[in-house]
């Protein structure tokens, strides 16, 4: 279970948000909404543990994530604005290496399978620099297929994706939630996902 308690975010002199509370159960989806600059990405980075809240606490199964550190990171997959793909590596190498760094080593067959599923068949051996923005995004999102973490934190996962890919990501998310996973995401697009519980968090 993921809980946020009285979270406060300060950037420079400005307070982006205060007293943000949420509680996410297994199988639940939390969608963070708000206009540009309202602190959606800041909140997501906070939930990942990349930045510390100015006040308040984030609990994972009742323990604060600051103390859990690596045990918590082992449960989280974060896909941010930056796709984390290396221009000089091939699509296949990108997926294999990013999975290995995230703690799950995968076989070549598994990587091929995931890349085919995400719609990159025939592009496996291309260097990532020749890919389009949407294809890069798919390389990053392919990690969702091979990881086995309960908590997914996705910052604008649908940006630059075509209709087919959006549908694909929705299916992947639904399957993850059905299996008892959790997801926190921000998006400006309307998405239709059926989940056990859907939480909307509105930032001012």
């Amino acid at each position: 279970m993921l809980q946020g308690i009285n979270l406060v975010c300060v950037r420079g002199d400005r307070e982006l948000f205060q007293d943000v509370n949420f509680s996410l159960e297994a199988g639940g989806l939390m969608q963070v909404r708000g206009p540009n600059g309202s602190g959606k990405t800041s909140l997501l980075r906070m939930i990942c543990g990349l930045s510390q809240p100015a006040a308040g606490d984030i609990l994972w199964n009742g323990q604060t994530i600051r103390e859990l550190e690596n045990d918590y990171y082992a449960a989280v997959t974060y896909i941010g604005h930056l796709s984390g793909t290396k221009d000089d590596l091939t699509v296949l190498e990108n997926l294999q290496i990013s999975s290995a760094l995230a703690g799950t080593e995968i076989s070549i067959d598994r990587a091929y399978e995931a890349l085919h599923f995400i719609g990159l068949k025939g592009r496996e051996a291309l260097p990532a620099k020749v890919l389009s923005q949407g294809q890069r995004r798919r390389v990053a999102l392919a990690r969702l297929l091979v990881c086995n973490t309960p908590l997914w934190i996705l910052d604008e996962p649908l940006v630059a994706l075509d209709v087919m890919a959006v549908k694909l990501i929705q299916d992947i998310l639904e399957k993850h939630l059905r299996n008892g996973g959790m997801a926190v995401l921000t998006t400006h697009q309307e998405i239709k996902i059926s989940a056990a519980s859907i939480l909307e968090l509105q930032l001012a």
Partner: protein
Amino acid sequence: MFIWIIKRDLLLAVRRQSDVLTTLFFFIIVVSLFPLSVGPEMNLLRAMAPGIVWVAALLASMLSLGRMFSNDYMDGTLEQMLLSPQSLSLLVLGKALAHWLVTGIPLVLMAPVLGIQYDLPVDALAILTFSLLLGTPVLSLIGAIGAALTLGLRGGGVLVSLLVLPLYIPILIFGAGAVEANMAGVEFDAHLSLIGAFLLVSMVFAPWAAASSLRVSLE
């Protein structure tokens, strides 16, 4: 994961050879400029050689420091590394080791050839090479701290030299000192032992310090 990060960084270096070659050619050119400008005065050149080769190695190693984390920072890979369930210090150690393999080892291999321009005797060349072999990993390790601290700052390249060069001074003194001691006919073991000690200490503390700075830099 330690192996993966080294494999990845070496693979990237192979795909982007210009980065490696710039460092090596910088080293070769700086070292070669001195004999050309000073002229063929053997005694003077012999006396200057250890110092010049070591200073050039420091500068060459620093030239590539900026790239150690900044590429990963810009494309988001570094964020993912920070969220890796394995120890971040170990990961930094892997990156420093890869940096050394890519920039340090070529300098070490090139040093005996360049030393000939200075008419260094064979045993002095051997000690120069050995002192570089022991000392260049320390440069990469200490450099990792500087690179992590200046990550994402404007003008980080200049700042990293101001931060890191003073920390390089002991290595410079003992590295060049070992060769000078040998040429003067006195014991040089102590110099090399001290560099070895620096290497061990920096292997323990530098990855930890760099990992902490990375967490601060990315917040």
